[in-house]
């Protein structure tokens, strides 16, 4: 085009032609006088100046700038409405060396995405957000935005924004400034050349903050929307300067860049061969899925007591021992609110056959570590089942004559054996004596996995022995 002299070159990080557009590939989809064109250019120039084009990943939002990827010759990810900060978070954490820019409008950022931006800023994510505030929903045709000004008309505030009905315009920079996470927050304006020069500096600074690794940066840009505001472009620009700047004061609302140190990069990952070890696994490429031949049993056990009595651990101990004995096993805790209320119980199955359901509704073994548990579960025990109860005097009043019942002050017995905290081991010892199906070696090997300190293992061994001495066959009364 020889009739023109070149004043400004197109930034390198813009595509020459917008091939991702289906038509009019040499012009943008933005309206004449729209602020997005200016913001795009300021961002592109900053990327060029900083020499970071290859490293930039631009997250485009939902709104008029949904097609930012038409123009920017950088890595592009398009996000759902309001979710750009969440997407940017994970992109940055995957590639800490990348420069991640999240580009959002007012509806996207301050309404539907309010939670995402708040938490992204609060985590101090090392990303840069460009927040284009034009006080209106542009793409959907002019509905009220969270930043719509008092009295401003929109298609959903036809009489103007009424504070009694719609609340107040949201001041995002001030809001985010109450958080400790952000490193740099500034509001600038596209209301005139001077303001645009300041905006240019702010965008550059925000990117540098990210490059220095000191945390979250956001630049809010007060921006004209001539089409929806129904103003000529020049008047729209003046409206930004004359009206918006009054409601949204310009300036830096937060700058902690001096006080922040670079966030360290994550350490190098361990070698692949180390992963199984880190997961506590020994890979076993030879073994099949079947347990070895074990004793012929089908124990459906319910363990119940107070939280802190070792109920869940006793259940796991049984399951681990069963596994070592070559049985099919399962363990299922009672989970949820009831586990906060102080009582605790679990379901354990040890079986020679494949286990259909780990839920034990009709146990043939009940280990009741306190009286409420006995009351709750005694009636569920299958006729012929075994009940071992930590307490005394229950056999007199319990109405079951069809179960084998052993009651002892097991807590006191555990205490005498070395520690009341080995109550569960004492009761396991008693169960082992009632039914010899579980080999002692399996109980021992299971304990070695569950109990790390040799001192406690020794106490547990004493407790197991103490439990076993409590059982004499003729004493297994019918309650």
């Amino acid at each position, binding site marked *: 085009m020889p009739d023109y002299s070149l004043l400004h070159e197109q930034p390198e990080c813009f595509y020459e032609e917008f091939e991702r557009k*289906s038509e009019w590939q040499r012009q943008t989809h933005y309206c004449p006088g729209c602020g997005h064109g200016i913001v795009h250019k300021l961002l592109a120039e900053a990327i060029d100046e900083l020499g970071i*084009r*290859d*490293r*930039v*990943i631009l997250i485009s939002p939902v709104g008029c700038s949904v*097609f930012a*990827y038409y123009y920017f010759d*950088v*890595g*592009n*990810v*398009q*996000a*759902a409405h309001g*979710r750009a900060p*969440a*997407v940017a*978070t*994970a*992109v940055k*954490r*995957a*590639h800490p060396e*990348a*420069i991640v820019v999240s580009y959002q409008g007012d509806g996207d950022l301050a309404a539907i995405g309010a*939670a*995402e931006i*708040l*938490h992204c800023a609060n985590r101090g994510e090392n990303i840069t957000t460009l927040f284009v505030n034009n006080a209106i929903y542009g793409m959907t045709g002019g509905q009220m935005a969270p930043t719509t000004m008092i009295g401003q008309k929109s298609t959903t505030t036809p009489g103007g924004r009424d504070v009694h009905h719609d609340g107040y315009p949201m001041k995002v920079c001030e809001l985010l400034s109450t958080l400790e996470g952000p490193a740099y927050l500034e509001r600038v304006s596209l209301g005139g050349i001077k303001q645009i020069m300041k905006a240019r500096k702010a965008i550059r600074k925000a990117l540098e903050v990210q490059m220095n690794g000191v945390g979250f940066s956001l630049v809010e840009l007060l921006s004209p929307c001539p089409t929806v505001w129904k103003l000529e472009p020049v008047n729209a620009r003046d409206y930004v300067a004359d009206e918006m700047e009054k409601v949204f004061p310009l300036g830096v609302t937060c700058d902690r860049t001096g006080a922040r140190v670079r966030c360290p990069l*994550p*350490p190098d*990952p*361990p070698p*692949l*061969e180390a*992963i*199984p070890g*880190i*997961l506590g*696994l020994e*890979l*076993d*490429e030879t*073994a099949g*899925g079947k*347990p070895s031949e074990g004793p012929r049993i089908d124990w459906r056990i319910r363990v119940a007591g107070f939280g802190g009595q070792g109920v869940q651990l006793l259940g796991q101990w049984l399951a681990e021992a069963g*596994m070592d004995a070559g049985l099919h*096993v*399962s*363990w*299922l805790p009672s*989970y*949820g609110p009831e586990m906060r209320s102080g009582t605790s119980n679990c379901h354990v199955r040890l079986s020679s056959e494949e*286990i*259909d*359901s*780990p*839920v034990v*509704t009709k146990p043939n073994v009940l280990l009741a570590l306190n009286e409420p548990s006995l009351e709750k579960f005694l009636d569920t025990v299958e006729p012929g089942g075994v009940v071992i109860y930590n307490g005394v005097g229950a056999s007199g009043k319990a109405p079951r004559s069809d179960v084998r019942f052993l009651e002892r002050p097991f807590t006191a017995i555990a205490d005498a054996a070395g520690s009341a905290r080995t109550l569960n081991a004492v009761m396991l010892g008693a169960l082992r004596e009632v039914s010899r199906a579980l080999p002692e070696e399996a109980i021992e090997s299971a304990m070695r996995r569950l109990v790390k300190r040799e001192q406690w293992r020794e106490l547990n061994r004493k407790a197991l022995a103490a439990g076993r001495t409590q059982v004499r066959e003729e004493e297994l009364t019918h309650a």
Partner: protein
Amino acid sequence: MRQLLKGNEAIVKGALLAGCRAFYGYPITPANEIAEAAAYYFPRCGGTFLQAESEVAAINMVYGAASAGVLTMTASSGPGISLMSEGISYLAGAELPCVIADITRGGPGLGNIAPEQSDYWQVVKNGGHGSYRSLVLAPSSVQEMADLTRLAFALAARYRNPVFVMADGVIGQMMEPVRFGEPAAVPPRPQWAVDGTAETRKNLVSSIFLQPDELEAHIGKLGAKYAEASRRETRLESYRTEDAEVVLTGYGIVRRILRHVVDELRGQGIAAGLLRPITLFPFPTEEFERLARRVPLFVAVEMSTGQMVEDVRLAVSGRAEVKFYGRCGGNLPDAAGIVEFVKTRLGAMEASHA
């Protein structure tokens, strides 16, 4: 070596062995142990763990990590999956691989935290908008939680699509012995990902196709993927079906109960069999069709008021009777009840044919 593990933990270990290196989640019972184990193990394995501010944010973080070429996952339960539906639609639309574990609980609304299978519709039929599908694997043991999680990542990468591991709260919460056989692996970085490098600068991750023809072509491409997955990835377990006069079907914890029921019925002289879908999408339609040419009665058992049974009816397509037996609210169907139900139905059929 067999190790006693919770179903929820087995998922995390299976995921890390499969090369998953980014976990984003939000607490919910009965899936919490997944996020807790991930918080412990992911950083140690060189991965990322982050607790998001909501399930909405979590699934969009998954979207971000997947865009960046990292094998990634999240985990939740029914109410959280409802919130994630939007993001799952975007993931499918943008053809991003990820794994979502759904440890199902009771609904609707807050429901309760006890096990149900009432997420079938929203997971298998899609809670989100648009013509997409998620691949869905349904483990019925802790061993399968590990194995199918590993498979889920392979399928996610192969089809560039969200893959669910859907298990009820019982499977998530219970402990069982598990074996891990395969060594740890990390798949090569996908070429389409956006890495913030010169090589990947031209890459774009997006689900928007403004022109109707473009979008139609894109949807067609997704459809072709799902058709291929249906041909190649359908998995099922068949137990004593070959001479069966009644075929029971169910997945997850129910499958285990049904195996016991089949043996019990066989013991009573009734030729029962079990057809258990391992993949809920793709659904083993062909096997149901094949059996329906010969088997007069199918009984679907679910912990819901009947969701998968609709797919059974579609597959059987009027060739046989399909009856439903369900419990919900956190109750498990009991074997004796199912046995009685089957015998009653068979009796009624014989009476009507007599």
